[in-house]
């Protein structure tokens, strides 16, 4: 009989929830009980809210278990592996061979989460061992570059296919990839560079990390095809140092690809096609996501953007023609070459083709990595796939595009995912961070949060970005502390437009977006802070008060015991009192009280 296959999901998120422990435990039990199982690893399948995930393939079919810990793993081994009795309590989905491998789910929500997606970029994530090139090859890996070699497809027609597919840069800008390639291809030079921008610095985004950790070869193959198309000689993957697992797996994948001659000289017997890739680790600077800053950083300089033109396609890395695309963009390329541009254009809207990967997080029930066809509404992503808002709270806004993006309020939730539709709301598509916020998130504080981020990350070159963001941050901090003044909103708007108009790079040009969109859609919250000195979301500490409701307080003393600053006093079985001068507004009493006796206003 064939061995039972047991596969543990070991992406960064899985590891953080204890997947390594689960893996090691299974390994120990396997040795101890001499079990005939093949234990394997895979990466993120996107269902982060059910991590750690364990998959089992046995003679009857396929089973996916979720939320596994050290006790449940014993249960599964005893019942399922030793006695062929799947444990329904922890099962998410299964496919039985006797049922033609039809996928069945236990919970409706998991079904919607999985079946509403369409995977092109994430086609292999969670299905292969990312450290095995054979696994990648078994799922049509490196078939596209072989197709190019066997069918003798010219580099010009590769560029044309990508142009016809309508693929646009997935890093956020949305510039047509094919056109970018054409510019770089047109420039003649003995040396040309192709760079993969894997400096995913947006707070709240982890799509690129998941692709690099889960399917590094797809990005490498995309780069090889890009190199063929623009006749590049050298490749660089610029990856954040904060992603150690991604860097490790990329290096493993590159070594494997070299061994199999997908990299090196005369690749797949295409005469004169010499190309290799190195990984460069970033050192922690958000601005290095901007292409000219990224180039400076690869050259070992401070990552400061420079004026364009000349564009990188003319004079980029070491002054040679250079093409830069983002991780997700490259991961799309092999699929397009293999399936044709027409197949790709079947997904999406008129001007935005294909799919988009989003990192869905925040106050949403099912956070995770989702890939959806362009054209889907934001409402469907958040309420159908994401399962709605956590803890029965009310939806307030969704933030797209990180510090360069904006907040979209409820009445615009039927906006479709498409570069132009999202731009029209004042937000941007961005690289795919999608943070859902509920009624307890203060929009002024959120704007302050992003300004704090860009202010720290500004490289300091342009006055408006360097000083303007600082001034805006000061105003926003004042407002959230109850010291807002009449005219602050107008001042913020004026500064915003000046910073947008007078900054050199994308960081400055988009830095005010979070402020502008929150003013546009949540002006009443700003006004409540400034005029009434109140925070409607009850989140800004200086503007809220905790008080004991003497009617409801039973004098159980729980609040007094838990108060970190001993600001609550009172006798046992008698109503307690909070000393407002000592209260640090930490909210511990509010969350600990079982009788709803702490009032917050």
């Amino acid at each position, binding site marked *: 009989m064939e061995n039972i296959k047991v596969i543990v999901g070991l992406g960064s998120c899985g590891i953080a929830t204890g997947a390594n422990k689960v893996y090691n435990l299974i390994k120990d039990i396997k040795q101890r009980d001499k079990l005939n199982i093949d234990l394997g690893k895979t990466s993120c399948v996107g269902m982060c809210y059910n991590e750690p995930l364990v998959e089992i393939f046995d003679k009857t079919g396929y089973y996916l278990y979720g939320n596994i810990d050290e006790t449940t793993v014993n249960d599964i081994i005893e019942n399922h592996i030793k006695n062929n009795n799947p444990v329904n309590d922890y099962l998410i989905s299964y496919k039985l061979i006797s049922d033609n491998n039809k996928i069945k789910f236990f919970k409706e929500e998991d079904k919607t989460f999985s079946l509403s997606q369409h995977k092109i970029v994430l086609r292999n994530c969670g299905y292969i061992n990312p450290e095995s090139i054979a696994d990648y090859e078994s799922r049509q890996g490196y078939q596209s570059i072989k197709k190019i070699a066997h069918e003798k497809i010219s580099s010009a027609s590769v560029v044309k296919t990508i142009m016809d597919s309508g693929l646009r840069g997935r890093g956020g800008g949305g510039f047509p990839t094919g056109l970018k390639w054409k510019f770089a291809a047109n420039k003649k030079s003995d040396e040309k560079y192709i760079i993969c921008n894997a400096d*995913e610095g947006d707070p709240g985004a982890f799509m690129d990390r998941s692709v690099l950790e889960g399917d590094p070869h797809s990005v490498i193959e995309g780069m090889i095809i890009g190199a063929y198309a623009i006749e590049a000689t050298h490749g660089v993957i610029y990856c954040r140092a904060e992603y150690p697992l991604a860097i490790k797996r990329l290096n493993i994948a590159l070594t494997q690809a070299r061994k199999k001659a997908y990299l090196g000289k005369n690749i797949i017997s295409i005469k004169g096609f010499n190309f290799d890739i190195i990984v460069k680790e970033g050192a922690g600077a958000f601005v290095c996501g901007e292409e000219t800053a990224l180039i400076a950083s*690869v050259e070992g300089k401070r990552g400061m953007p420079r004026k364009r033109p000349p564009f990188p396609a003319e004079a980029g890395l070491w002054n040679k023609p250079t093409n830069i695309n983002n991780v997700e963009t490259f991961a799309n390329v092999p699929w397009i070459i293999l399936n044709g541009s027409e197949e790709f254009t079947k997904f999406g809207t008129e001007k935005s083709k294909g799919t988009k990967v989003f990192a869905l997080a925040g*106050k949403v029930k099912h956070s995770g990595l989702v890939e959806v066809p362009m054209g889907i509404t934001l409402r469907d992503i958040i309420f159908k796939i994401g399962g709605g808002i956590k803890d029965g709270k009310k939806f307030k806004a969704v*933030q797209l595009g*990180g510090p360069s993006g904006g907040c979209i309020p409820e009445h615009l939730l039927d906006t479709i995912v498409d570069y132009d539709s999202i731009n029209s709301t004042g937000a941007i598509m961005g690289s795919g961070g999608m943070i859902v916020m509920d009624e307890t998130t203060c929009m002024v504080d959120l704007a302050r949060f992003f300004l704090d981020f860009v202010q720290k990350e500004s490289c300091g070159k342009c006055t408006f970005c360097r000083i303007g963001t600082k001034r805006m941050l000061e105003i926003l901090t004042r407002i959230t502390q109850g010291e807002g003044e009449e005219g602050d909103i107008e001042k913020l708007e004026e500064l915003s437009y000046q910073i947008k108009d007078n900054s050199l790079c994308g960081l400055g040009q988009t830095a005010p977006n979070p402020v502008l969109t929150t003013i546009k859609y949540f002006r009443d919250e700003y006004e409540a802070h400034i005029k009434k000195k109140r925070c409607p979301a009850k989140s800004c500490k200086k503007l809220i008060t905790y008080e004991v409701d003497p009617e409801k307080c039973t004098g159980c003393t729980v609040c007094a015991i838990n108060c970190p600053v001993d600001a609550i006093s009172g006798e046992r079985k008698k109503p307690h009192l909070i000393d407002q001068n000592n209260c640090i507004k930490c909210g511990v009493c509010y969350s600990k009280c079982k009788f709803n006796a702490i009032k917050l206003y």
Partner: protein
Amino acid sequence: MRIKRTNTSKNKTKNHLKVDLKLIDPIISKYKNKKGNLIPILQGVQTTYGFIPHEAFIKLSDEIGLKLNDLYGVATFYAQFRLHPGGKHIIKVCHGTACHVQNSDGITDALKEELKINDGETTKDNLFTLESVACLGCCSLAPVMMIDGETYGKLDNAKAVKIIREIKKTEFRV
């Protein structure tokens, strides 16, 4: 703007520890005369010592021929580089958007209280350094912190403090 860390070099004299400069010879010979070498060199030096000592800057400048101001310029630009030794355990509390809306500020406050230090500082016994970072990329588990490369997710204030106390316990047992 990205200049903050240059201003904090008050305890320079304290850093004149016994730095064995020979340790970085392999890094220098590996990267010398390669273009674009500066960041990998600094990363290598930091891996060796846990920070980049002033003496190492001088040695790098002498042996590689890069100007000292260029070296410092790069080292102070990127958040990764440390000019002062950190504690034995580096606590990085994530302040990405997903963590922020789920009260990562509270986590930092609780840890400040527990360790009796401010954000960016090191405890007196040199055991812990508390830092805030922009995003660790584990947004679905927010709020998150990373200690010595290990990520802890779905935190609340009490959980975060408990993790620190566990580490303290193992430290004092040794």
